[in-house]
């Protein structure tokens, strides 16, 4: 009995963002369908897993994992966590970059004042490398957006599980002259079991709006899964369970439309990379 399918065809598409230069350049986004529905649209770039390291950590284990991007969190610049000055951070980042040879995602410490002081200097030091910098929020985006614009980097725009704020922030940043195709959205990350479903649904709603033509929601999604998962009791209780917790959260986020997933545990990251290979095989 031949079944007549109902296929969803959308006019909109997610922006494609390039991170890095030359042969090492990584593309994310570009899809015209909800995740992995290859009979309805395309996912020209497969979702990317990037390991996260702190600026004071050795990146060796993360590099060995085989990701195509590396995320460095500048935790040490926080006033309560060492208050490390910009030039020291830039030196560490330089070493990490040299060692891994991968385009970097550089994320501040979360203290607005300190981030605004350090990130512009870091951005300048890597001018033209086409990195991804974060994190811009509704209350603190101007400094970072201006510096990324000047130095040719892309930016992570974060909203608090709120599709309207996500859109608003994208508008604010593009109003500064920023290319919309250089913005990656962070809808906020929550771990499995800690409100993950809110993020899941916000992403689905955003995606559907983008496919229906909303250009200010057509940015790829980044999720910082690792740092959220390893804060939970379930992960702290048992490493084996934590690894699975990270896998399950990452996969759920991929099923909701995640394009770039930042992870902490190398084993979990490798598993999710294998999963992506498996589902992308057509």
């Amino acid at each position, binding site marked *: 009995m031949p079944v007549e399918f109902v296929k969803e065809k959308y006019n909109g598409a997610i922006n494609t963002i390039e991170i890095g230069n030359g042969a090492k350049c990584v593309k994310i986004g570009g899809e015209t369908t909800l995740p992995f529905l290859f009979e309805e649209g395309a996912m020209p770039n497969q979702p990317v897993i990037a390991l996260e390291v702190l600026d004071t950590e050795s990146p060796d284990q993360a590099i060995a994992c085989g990701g195509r991007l590396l995320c460095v969190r500048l935790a040490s610049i926080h006033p309560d966590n060492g208050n490390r000055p910009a030039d020291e951070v830039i030196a560490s980042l330089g070493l990490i970059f040299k060692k891994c040879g991968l385009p970097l995602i550089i994320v501040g410490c979360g203290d607005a004042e300190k981030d605004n002081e350090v990130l512009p200097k870091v951005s300048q030091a890597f001018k033209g490398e086409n990195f991804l910098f974060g994190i811009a929020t509704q209350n603190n985006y101007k400094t970072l957006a201006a510096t990324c614009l000047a130095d040719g980097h892309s930016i992570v725009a974060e909203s608090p599980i709120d599709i309207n704020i996500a859109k608003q922030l994208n508008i604010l940043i593009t109003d500064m002259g920023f290319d919309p195709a250089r913005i990656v959205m962070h809808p906020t990350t929550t771990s499995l079991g800690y409100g993950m479903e809110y993020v899941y649904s916000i992403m689905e709603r955003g995606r559907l709006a983008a496919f229906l033509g909303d250009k200010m929601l057509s940015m790829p999604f980044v999720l910082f899964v690792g740092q959220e998962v390893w804060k939970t009791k379930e992960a702290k209780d048992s490493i084996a369970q934590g690894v699975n917790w990270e896998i*399950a959260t990452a996969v759920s986020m991929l099923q909701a439309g995640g394009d770039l997933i930042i992870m902490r545990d190398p084993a979990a990251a490798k598993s999710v990379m294998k999963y992506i290979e498996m589902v992308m095989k057509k």
Partner: protein
Amino acid sequence: MALSGLDIYKLLPKTNCKECGFATCLAFAMALAQKKVSLDKCPKVTATAREALESASQPPIKLVTIGKGEDKLEIGNETVMYRHEQKFFHPAGIGCLVEDTLSDNELTARVAKINALTFERVGQKIGVSLICIKNSSGDKTKFVNAVKKVASGSNLNLALYSGNPEAVKESLTIIKDRRPLIICADKAKTDDLARLAKEFSAPLAITAASLDEAAELTDKVKKLGVDEIMIDLKTDDVSKRIQDFTFMRRLALKKNFRLLGYPVLAFTGSNTPDLELAEAVSYVAKYAGLVIVKNIEKEFIFPLLVVRQDIYQDPQKPVQVEPKIYEIGKVTKDSPVLVTTNFSITYFTVACEVESSKVPTYIICCDSEGMSVLTAWAAEKFTAEKIANLLKTSGITEMVGHRKIVIPGYVSVLSGKLEEVSGWKVAVGPREASGIPNYLRSYK
């Protein structure tokens, strides 16, 4: 999918004979669409029209019940593609595979391990729903023995996975009051198994290689008198399966396509636990009604169950805990008092950090309608007045000798006002719950 008045009108005799009490067939059709009258009022309606109308009033995805009693598994009857449109109603079952090739000891041990897979999380009990016994041996006696052993060793719902009608029949005779799911492992035996499903009034899962074939088989099985049907698609390709599950749900919901309007069943195909987990999570997120897994380790099943809990959470109703005083540890008159909201995730995160601090502590949950601290504060559900009122009415004044309360760091702005209206001293705690153990250990 509900029919419109006009759709119904087309099916009526269009004679305007008025016997239904309405002036015209159209008027009757309109009233019927609004469910104001019943179709019985029209004595002239043809049998075909009746059938069409009745089937349109059925839910687009059939509700299937496996098992009996309190812990029976009900799946299907879903109404939306995306959970934000309303919610997903019937949480997918997680089943564990038991093969009849295991030795008696292995089987007993495996069943005992599966029985233990229940957990408590955010105040809810969660656990696996079913054991699926697979006739991997191909042998009838082995299968029946395994079924006997599993049935006597576990109260979980059961599924019989075999292509041998005799083996299934004998098993059904033994466990008929458990109302197991029959999973047809051999397409050629679909008819025989359908007859058994009818005889024992058990639900039946058909196995098909494609959606075309699935529609053919459900049609056939339905005509043999089986109502509760599930669909298992045989493909090793995970994204193809997700695509097909999506097609099925969409056809059922948007086109009222009956032949695929049944819950789907998915066996994991991956051979390593990590990929199996990733695969199972994908099926839970994307429309499976029952996922059957091979791995039964606790640290594998628990996150999978929590994924299901998250995905099937009602988006309109955050899980809440009762707004009251909670005592963590052996509290005394001098124990610290923390206040937070009654969003369950907020409360359980705080409670778990307090526990790990080993400092006996009172936690007062303020009724914030299930919002987290910052959201509740922004929505004025977590205000100085509300907290002050709670301090007065909750009974905490009799439980402690001091008058000092700790509020979450995110709402430090409340402290001045709260001191003023409550008369309590206010201390500002950490922003993130993870800071609580350090905070409490040095708390004075």
